[in-house]
């Protein structure tokens, strides 16, 4: 009788009381909010990422409850230091890592090792073959060809185009350059590749303005620098390049830069964090589509869509 009483009344009563307390005092505390995820972002440059890229990342971080930790090498494009940072972050148990690789060849082994332990997504340079879960980048070859195509309009047949090789190593920037070079050569232009660092032109190369009809820079820093050089010279090399900073927009507006390929870096940052967070949370990560870019000239820079691309509302 006692056992029957316990089974019939006491046990269900206890169960229902437990449900009541759960409902009454903890109603969906973490509703729709995934647990906080710490994500390390290993940049390629020593002085942080572009503003829009960072804003895109931070917007995604806010949306997805991710805490970002930005890590920069002491020198620009230093793959060895990136490898060390990647290794350190992997060993310290980072849930997700976002990497902007400086040199795929130098980082291949470290990336492969890291990808086994953590959710690794690369930005700008595709390293999915090395084990990265996803890669978020513009179609570099298409961007390079678009820049080459733009340069063809300003450089006569047989003219010389100087390509600034500003990011050494195997990476997405190089893919752009190689695609542009191939197109220009194919169309009968002379192509010269010039090593470039923030410190200036490589001593082994003569100054570009004396040698070329056009200069092509394939990333922001080189393009900004190229625009400055052009302004101070009397010659006539046209400047084309990739990037969409305020300085580049000013250069474009003042005629120092002839045309730019502006990619949607905000989207790139957002999608990269989104993919890495999804991977870290064991959600399905599909192939991220290539980031769009637009060729913008002075006369089209204030068109509605280009305004949004060049001057993010942040």
């Amino acid at each position, binding site marked *: 009788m006692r056992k029957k009483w316990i089974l*019939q*009344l006491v046990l*269900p*009563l206890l169960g*229902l009381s437990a*449900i*009541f307390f759960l*409902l*009454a005092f903890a*109603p*969906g505390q973490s*509703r*729709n909010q995934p647990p906080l995820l710490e994500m390390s972002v290993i940049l390629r440059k020593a002085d942080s990422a572009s503003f829009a890229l960072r*804003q*895109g990342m931070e*917007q995604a971080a806010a949306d997805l409850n991710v805490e970002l930790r930005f890590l920069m090498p002491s020198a620009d494009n230093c793959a060895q230091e990136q490898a060390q940072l990647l290794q350190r972050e992997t060993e310290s148990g980072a849930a997700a890592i976002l990497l902007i690789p400086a040199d795929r060849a130098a980082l291949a082994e470290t990336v492969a090792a890291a990808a086994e332990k953590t959710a690794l997504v690369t930005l700008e340079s595709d390293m999915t073959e090395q084990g990265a879960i996803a890669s978020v980048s513009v179609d570099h070859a298409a961007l390079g060809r678009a820049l080459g195509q733009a340069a063809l309009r300003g450089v006569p047949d047989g003219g010389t185009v100087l390509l600034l090789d500003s990011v050494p190593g195997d990476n997405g920037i190089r893919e752009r350059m190689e695609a542009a070079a191939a197109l220009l050569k194919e169309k009968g232009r002379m192509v010269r590749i010039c090593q470039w660092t923030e410190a200036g032109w490589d001593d082994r190369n003569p100054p570009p303005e004396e040698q070329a009809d056009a200069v092509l820079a394939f990333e922001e820093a080189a393009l900004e620098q190229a625009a400055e050089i052009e302004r101070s010279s009397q010659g006539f090399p046209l400047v084309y390049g990739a990037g969409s900073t*305020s*300085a580049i*927009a*000013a250069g474009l*507006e003042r005629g120092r830069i002839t045309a730019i390929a502006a990619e*949607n870096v*905000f*989207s790139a940052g*957002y*999608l990269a964090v989104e993919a890495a967070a999804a991977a870290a949370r064991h959600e399905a990560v599909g192939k991220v589509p290539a980031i769009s870019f637009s060729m913008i000239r*002075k006369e089209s820079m*204030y068109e*509605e869509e280009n*305004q*949004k*691309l*060049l*001057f*993010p*509302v*942040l």
Partner: protein
Amino acid sequence: MKKQFEGIRRRWRELYHRSSIQLILSLSFTAVAVVGMVFMGLALFLRFSASTNVMAAESSQRVLAQVNLNLDHYLRNMMQVSDTVYYQVIKDLDLGDESDVEALKKALKLLYEKDRGSLVSLAVFDQSGGLIGASPLAELKASVTPEREAWFATAMERIENLHFSTPHVQDLFEDPDSRYRWVVSLSRQVELTRNGITQGGVLLVDMNFSGIEQLCKDVMLASGQGYLYLIDSTGEIIYHPRQQLIYAELQAENNLVAAGYADGSHTETFQSQRRQVTVKTVGYTGWKLVGVVPEETLWDNYGQLLLFFLFVVIFSIFLLAFANLRLSEWITAPMKKLDRAVKELESGQEMVDFNVDGPYEVEHLGRSIQAMVSTMRHLMEDIIQQEEEKRRSELDVLQSQINPHFLYNTLDSVVWMTENGRTEEAVVMLTALARFFRISLSRGSNIIPVSDELEHARHYLTIQKMRYKNKFSADITAEDGVEHLYTIKLIIQPILENAIYHGMAYADGDGEIHIRAFRDGEDVLIEVVDNGPGMPEEMVEQLLQPGGPAAASGAKGSGIGFRNVHQRIRLTFGAPYGLTILSEPDNGTVVRIRLPALDEQAAGRYRKEGER
């Protein structure tokens, strides 16, 4: 459909017939209570949900009204700046005079400084787009042609109005710092005086977009689950908390549809998400503030509420089920007791209590059953008595079958002896006959001592030996103590009759009949052994079968006597008792009578009513 319904009905009926009344009562009570509670709960929940929806809409409207107030204040401020420039500066100046132009520039600078947090630039253009004065930057970009700008054209087309643009990058002035700022332009047509001649112009006030952003950014809708955005009359987004995501096409907004909504709350489905949308039109501009609250956030609250309701319902169901179980147990207890009493009755118990102590109907049923049982018992006793009497009647009939044959034969012999002068022998025979009948009658008693039965046999043998002229000899022996036991009467004589007619009738003075009575455990055996011709086995087997063939049909002692005796013994004492016949052709016959060893007291049970 009909088959399914029939199937359900059949299964329901099977379940109904298998279930106890307590279970049916419990389930019925609980089901009715649950239906009532669920109905009540749902009604309350729906009512509450509707109220919550209304409250959420009202809350959104209040928030939007407050933002609208702030925005209105902000825009009014900008319009005041514009009015001040126009009515208090431009109207008083003749811009043909260089000093007045300088005064205009100075005034613009002052006004800019006063509201520099909200303003990006103030500028006055003549009707051909020439810059007259501007602050803080005063140099137009070489590439700029103001008269082609939308704000300029709109102002010149609709001169009586103030015109607000959608957000755009301010691109008019050379900025040494290369800053590109998002602005909302307020433009109006103004009348400029130059050398006494009035001509048209445009006054431009570029408001910092961040000012509008600040007003809308931190607005909380539905505890932060909702958001607010601002669109112009065509649906173009002016502010959206995720504006860059929308520009990057990573997110979409239903702004073009929202532009068509009237002020108030609406429900829409956008990208498979139901949302509560509240719209408020901003004065002067035609802009619309749109508050969006995804219904799933409301449903999250409803979900909690629903869970709570569900919990209350489950809890109540549990308590009800328990209470109903107890209640139905109490109600059905008398019926169960009655059912148990009937089962006890079925199992053969005699003393069954039908006093179930329940409500009137059940007690009445109990009393009725008890009365019925009592009546049945009496009827059964009557039937048993009648059966017993019938049995005894049959016995008497069987017993009475003996006498006529024997009496006829004996009297026939006496007549024959008397006719032949054998008076002494006739006297002996008649004496034996008289004693034979005295024992046969035994004062009507059916049960007599074994000694009387043996005496009866002796008299019978005396008569028959005389009739058959001593063709056979006979002796009777009895074990000590057996003669005092009791038996039903007239069981030896029919066997002797059979032995004589079939065995001794043809003997030539060497016929023998031995009668022996002795104990066999709790039984008494009386053996009648003759040395007659015996019988084949198949005849022996059939001799005691009811309706079996007679030894010699129509003859005396044809076997009827065997069966008669056998049936009488079995009717009186039961199946274990009766006759056993052992016989072999040419080897005589042994008839063994098995009886219970009855003393006088035990024999009393078998006496007829009134026997002594």
